[in-house]
């Protein structure tokens, strides 16, 4: 079914960072829970087991110099604590309900202000550029964070294929909206389909990742299979999942959260500890799986720590106004 086998001598993504090592850190949490409960419990190990992955699920990728060296969040947390409203608004809904998503066949339409509009099949996308493992911090607007070993390549590789015209100033991303596969669409919490957007220079930035996998495997459905965008210096919701259409446009697109609650969620949504959300501070965050129950939250970094690479994109802009 898939994809690309590892070249001789090339390490499988799974070997670069053994998952068991990350999962061990879960003990921090266990210890904290035990502190509250007064004793240490036994049957925890079962849920730390790595997922059974078939050969067909594995993706070979080379490590990227753009990766952080911070320890990744346990696989179980990355794949069971998700916001993906098409499958429900609770964080465990996506893992529970996203099994109904069919990720093959899958096509992504690329259209709008481009010289060569076209449709990409998922297999074409997987081969468009060499797959890299990029270990990025992810900061959710809700005040939690993770470190995730994504697999993909810079979105710019796809953008160059379609040759944007001079009118292309922004890019819109559309998530699949099929009520048959996505039970959350019956709820009206957001307008469907889910729309996100970036300025063209943001989309062209090498950090902006067209993502097809994580932890050495194809993306789990709840994480946005089969293809999603990851923009590591912005709040997580900017990173659209299960993308079916990419459109190049001249005007700043009206994105889903910006349309739903404009005073809380701006178009840019760069991670910014100095601009609080109306209902909570953004100055700190809780690192999932690492910051245990009784551990202080960690300070949030400007642009989620990617300021050296991306601050120049916003030179001269008032990031309080363009939040």
């Amino acid at each position, binding site marked *: 079914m898939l994809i690309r086998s590892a070249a001789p001598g090339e390490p499988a993504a799974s070997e670069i960072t053994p998952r068991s090592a990350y999962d061990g850190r879960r003990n921090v949490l266990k210890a904290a829970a035990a502190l509250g*409960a007064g004793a240490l419990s036994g049957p925890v190990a079962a849920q730390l087991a790595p997922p059974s992955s078939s050969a067909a699920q594995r993706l070979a990728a080379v490590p990227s110099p753009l990766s952080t060296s911070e320890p990744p969040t346990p696989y179980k947390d990355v794949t069971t604590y998700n916001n993906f409203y098409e499958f429900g608004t609770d964080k465990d809904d996506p893992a529970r309900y996203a099994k109904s998503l069919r990720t093959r066949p899958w096509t992504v339409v690329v259209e709008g202000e481009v010289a060569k509009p076209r449709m990409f099949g998922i297999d074409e996308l997987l081969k468009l550029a060499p797959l890299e493992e990029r270990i990025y911090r992810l900061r959710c607007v809700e005040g939690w964070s993770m470190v995730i070993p994504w697999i993909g390549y810079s979105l710019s590789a796809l953008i160059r294929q379609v040759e944007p015209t001079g009118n292309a100033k922004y890019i819109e991303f559309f998530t699949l909206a099929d009520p048959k596969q996505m039970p959350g669409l019956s709820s009206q919490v957001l307008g469907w389909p889910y729309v996100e957007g970036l300025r063209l220079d943001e989309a062209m930035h090498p950090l902006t990742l067209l993502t097809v996998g994580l932890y050495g495997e194809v993306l789990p459905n709840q994480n946005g299979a089969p293809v999603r965008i990851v923009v590591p210096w912005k709040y997580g919701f900017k990173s659209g999942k299960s993308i079916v259409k990419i459109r190049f446009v001249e005007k700043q697109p009206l994105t889903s959260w910006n349309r739903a609650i404009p005073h809380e969620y701006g178009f840019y949504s760069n991670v910014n500890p100095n601009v609080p959300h109306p209902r909570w501070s953004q100055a700190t965050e809780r690192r999932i799986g690492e910051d245990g*129950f009784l551990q202080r939250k960690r300070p949030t970094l400007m642009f989620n720590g990617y300021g050296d690479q991306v601050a120049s994109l916003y030179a001269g802009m008032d990031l309080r106004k363009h939040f």
Partner: protein
Amino acid sequence: MARAATVGVPRGGLPAWLKPVVFLACLVPLARLFALGFADELGTNPVEFVTRSTGTWALVMLCATLAVTPLRRLSGWTALVRLRRMLGLFAFFYALLHFTVFLWLEHWFDLGAMLLDVIERPFVTAGFLAFVLLVPLAATSTQAMMRRLGSRWQALHRLVYLVAPLAILHFWWHKAGKNDFLEPAIYGTVVGLLLLARLVKRRR
């Protein structure tokens, strides 16, 4: 006035077992949190889980407390009122846990930072006010205080009519970030009905 509802045929007192059973039932949510913590089953974000659980149960207990009077009137079982103080104190107990998690795990006992949060964010303000207003009610819940305060006791305890809407507002504004108002709408309806029931002319 407080005695008006005792008119009618009383159907006897509370069975001896009822109070201890309700007491234990009210402790189940706390026991559950300990059991889940013990088994490392508090989920991916345990602080969030505990915060939400304690907040939800404070609200449930508040609804239960407010339900006593309408139930008593509907059923004519006046002895029900003897459960009310316990339910109210459990509402305060879960609100106290909810507030403690906020003060401890969010603010690490930095009172200045906590108060700044209260001032700056209406969602926190509403929840904080609801909690603060519960404190004098809990403090004056004893028989001795009832006797000492006399008629002023009831006036003071009408603060609960402010606490409940504030708690709903707190929940509503919290969920606004998810644009998902189903749960606060359900609790809001329950609280609304329980408060409305008090406006209905009392049966004679």
